[in-house]
């Protein structure tokens, strides 16, 4: 069994230093790794990133993170990433990483992702340049997620997790106004997850959403935005099979 701890949208600033650390220090007792699903800061400043870094340094379990839209606000995502990496976190954008725990190889593919909406109610790559770029950017994020998951499949991980900030499915947005769904996620992420295969998808971003959802391909989705889970993190127990995977690419890799 793999024990996955996850939280997103912790929105840390100088006034929140130390708030999560006591709970995070219990992680070695209950989890094999900690996933951070973006919006770790309020404005994406180096000062705020250092607050997060101190919160997650030397926790005793691997920390794997993606950034969120808030972490981009100050236009310094590379600095934020570097500060978190200095603290030992794996920060992913269009990449995957493998962490090991108790002999199990856990692959995590991560991207911030982006909006665009869900099938039948989504933005199209048409019209003004800014509109086309909006959709292309979302597509690039999804394509990178698919490629990372496929790579992890070829590496024979015992479990593969898709980690994003934006949501791959509308299920976990329930509670948010319908009108803003296109700003909260994109079906392109779910399509990537279903095409490459994964055992779990974890995201944040939708503070008023709900925790549980599933892709059309049957991959479970969890919205771990801190306001949703109401805790410092949630833990998911994933059974370990022999190279547990779904999806066409995973089949091909066997």
């Amino acid at each position, binding site marked *: 069994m793999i024990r996955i701890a996850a939280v997103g949208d912790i929105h840390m600033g100088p006034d929140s230093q130390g708030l999560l650390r006591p709970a995070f220090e219990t992680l070695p007792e209950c989890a094999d790794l900690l996933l951070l699903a973006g919006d770790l800061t309020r404005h994406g400043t180096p000062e705020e990133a250092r607050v997060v870094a101190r919160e997650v340094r030397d926790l005793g379990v691997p920390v794997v993170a993606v950034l969120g839209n808030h972490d981009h606000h100050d236009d310094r995502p590379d600095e934020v990433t570097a500060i978190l990496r200095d603290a030992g976190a794996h920060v992913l954008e269009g990449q995957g990483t493998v962490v090991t725990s108790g002999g199990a190889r856990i692959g995590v593919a991560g991207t911030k992702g982006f909006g665009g909406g869900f099938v039948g109610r989504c933005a199209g790559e048409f019209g003004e340049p800014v509109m086309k770029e909006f959709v292309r950017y979302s597509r690039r994020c999804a394509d990178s997620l698919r490629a990372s998951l496929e790579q992890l499949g070829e590496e024979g991980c015992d479990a593969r997790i898709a980690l994003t900030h934006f949501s791959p499915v509308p299920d976990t947005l329930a509670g948010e106004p319908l009108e803003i769904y296109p700003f909260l996620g994109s079906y392109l992420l779910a399509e990537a997850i279903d095409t490459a295969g994964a055992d779990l998808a974890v995201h944040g971003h939708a503070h008023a959403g709900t925790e549980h959802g599933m892709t059309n391909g049957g991959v479970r989705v969890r919205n771990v935005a801190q306001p949703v889970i109401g805790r410092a993190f949630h833990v998911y*127990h994933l059974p370990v099979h022999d190279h547990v995977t779904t999806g066409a690419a995973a089949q091909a890799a066997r």
Partner: protein
Amino acid sequence: MTTHGSQPPGGGEPEQNLEYRIAHLQDRLASGELGELGVRVEARGRTVLLTGTVPSAPCRDEIVRTVQEELAGVPVHSDLVVTETSSPDHAEELA
């Protein structure tokens, strides 16, 4: 349609329109010091209700202060809660 006096058609001065004032407030909450996009601000009759979860008590206080400043003259009810930071008491089995 007949209009009376100097009142512009369409329902009064924009600065008196609560809906637009709320929209401007939300812009200020998002782009200002707070970077706050998670607070719902809704008109309830002649009052305004704040709901949502915020990361810290100082954040909550600052949001309420900003709302009261931006919506001066409008009674504001806050149901904002501060996010819970305790460890979970159980795990979910994904069998």
